[in-house]
């Protein structure tokens, strides 16, 4: 809007991509962090939160409704659902963190390369664009079918799924700033490619990449759950939230607690990460959303 009421509105809009952390923390961000923290604590403190073994089978105790001894009841093998939920958080977070780190590493490295060197762009750009052709989840299924179900393989397939987006963002930032004056200035005082990229250009892309990674983290948890639900993710008897839902499907008429609790946990984890991502984005520049960058 070009009719700002005299210097009050216009100052609130930060220039695109400039990191404006001076603003007050976004409420969505705060709520997201507050929701995520107990989940992380739960994963770390798992052995102290429950003394029951998530894997120990106890047939006579099967399909017990929630009680003091088993707050979330027991499953069809008589395993304590609370223990499985608590340990399941470790899987979700491990997959999330693992794939986020890999995505960040590959995304930044390949994104920088394809933004900086034209020859690299020809290959990396083409391949990553092509990977985005597949309807997201289908690609994950294909990769899992090829490399077999395991937790580490889930991390790999989530990374392959999400890396093209990060590449695209980083590449766009690099291209945007490649010819910028401050880069030219740094070059004239003798900065090499490496120094230019990592000291001068990458920090500018840091904001959007962070936003994207928090959405990617959320996505990783959803994809892991989905793959495990289909039997292509973390193999049994590991207590993944997704496979808990798959196991519970035969008992939805008799044991509702089996299916509600893990789904609720997934929702909570994904919601908190999405809120963090939304909050980060709005702190960065609210207009990014409609530009379809994030």
């Amino acid at each position: 809007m070009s009719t700002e009421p005299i210097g009050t509105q216009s100052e609130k809009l930060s220039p695109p991509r400039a990191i404006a952390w001076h603003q007050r923390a976004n409420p969505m961000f705060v709520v997201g962090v507050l929701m995520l923290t107990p989940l992380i604590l739960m994963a770390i403190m798992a052995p102290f939160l429950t003394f029951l073994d998530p894997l120990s089978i106890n047939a006579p105790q099967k399909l017990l409704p929630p009680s003091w001894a088993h707050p979330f009841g027991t499953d069809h093998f008589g395993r304590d659902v609370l223990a499985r939920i608590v340990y399941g958080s470790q899987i979700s977070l491990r997959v999330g963190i693992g794939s986020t780190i890999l995505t960040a590493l590959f995304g930044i490295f390949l994104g920088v390369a394809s933004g900086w060197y034209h020859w690299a762009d020809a290959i990396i750009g083409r391949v990553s664009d092509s990977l985005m052709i597949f309807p997201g989840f289908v690609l994950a299924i294909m990769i899992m079918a090829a490399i077999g179900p395991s937790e580490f393989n889930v991390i790999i397939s989530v990374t392959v799924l999400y890396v093209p987006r990060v590449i695209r963002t980083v590449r766009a930032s690099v291209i945007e700033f490649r010819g910028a004056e401050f880069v030219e200035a740094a070059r004239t005082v003798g900065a090499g490619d490496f120094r230019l990229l990592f000291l001068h250009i990458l920090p500018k892309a840091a904001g959007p990449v962070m936003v994207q990674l928090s959405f990617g983290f959320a996505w990783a948890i959803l994809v892991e759950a989905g793959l495990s639900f289909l039997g292509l993710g973390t193999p049994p008897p590991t207590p993944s939230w997704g496979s808990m839902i798959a196991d519970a499907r035969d008992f939805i008429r008799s044991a509702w607690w089996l299916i509600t609790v893990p789904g609720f946990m997934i929702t909570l984890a994904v919601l908190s990460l999405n809120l963090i991502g939304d909050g980060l984005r709005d702190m960065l520049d609210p207009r990014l959303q409609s530009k379809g960058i994030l």
Partner: protein
Amino acid sequence: MFEYALRRIISFIPTIFITLTLIFFITRMVPGSPISSLVGHQAVSAEQIDAITRDLGLDRPILVQYLEWLPHVLIGDFGNSLFYKQPIIEVVAERFPVTLYLTVFSMIVTISIGMPLGIYAAIRRGGAVDYASNAFSSIGMAMPSFWLGFLLIIVFAVSLGWLPASGYRSPDFGIWNWLSRLILPVIAQSLAQIGLVVRMTRASMIEVMGQEYITMARAKGLSETRVVLKHALKNAMTQITTVIGLTFALGLGGSVIIENVFALPGLGQLITIAAIRRDYSMLEGGIFYLTLVALVVNLIVDLAYAYFNPRIRY
């Protein structure tokens, strides 16, 4: 417009080629995997494995295999399914309509709820509807669709008994028999999509509503309805069509899961079965045809984009 459309359609051919190539190499990423799955856990002698390997041509270099495979699949022939023992194209054709109904219906639901809600949230920004739709879309996008599917089954099929819990009947069994089994899957599939479309519609409408030409449209004496629905919406449509395309692709991916929850015999379920049984040619065929749908939708979206945005009509 015509020229642009033509160019866009021609560029479709290399995309298909790339898709096929990626499918081939990803499924064969791990050497020897098709054969190990074929024999499964049965005790098979090394000679037998060798025989099968030679039979399938798996002993030759991967590039040779690729060059032999490509001409067949380019005409849509993915060979026979190891599991179904019939041509893949037939299996796909049988199951294709189910997936198509699911995705098309959920797209219709998504657009007809998501867009109006997003527009309304944008023009009544900060109002009750805005907050409610934001909360709704945040939660909708965070819920795993398969979990939502089971919750719907628990409520509407098990408790209330209004709708069948799962399964599929073709329209030949009567419209209600057919539709009633699609209602819950479509809802489960749509919720996250609606969330996405609401948010993007809202964001792009807000951006457009702040433009000078909107002030100008008001200054001409247009009614607010006309300002929003003519001047703002057509501009926002360029971004919204892109999102709708993305949502559709996402929905096709999601249909894989939804079909498994509701036991719908569609392409997604077929792909899952093929992946679990490691029926590779089935997997390749299923994924290719599913991706093809996504590509066609993408093409339509691009053409719609050109329609809404005169700046890219050449």
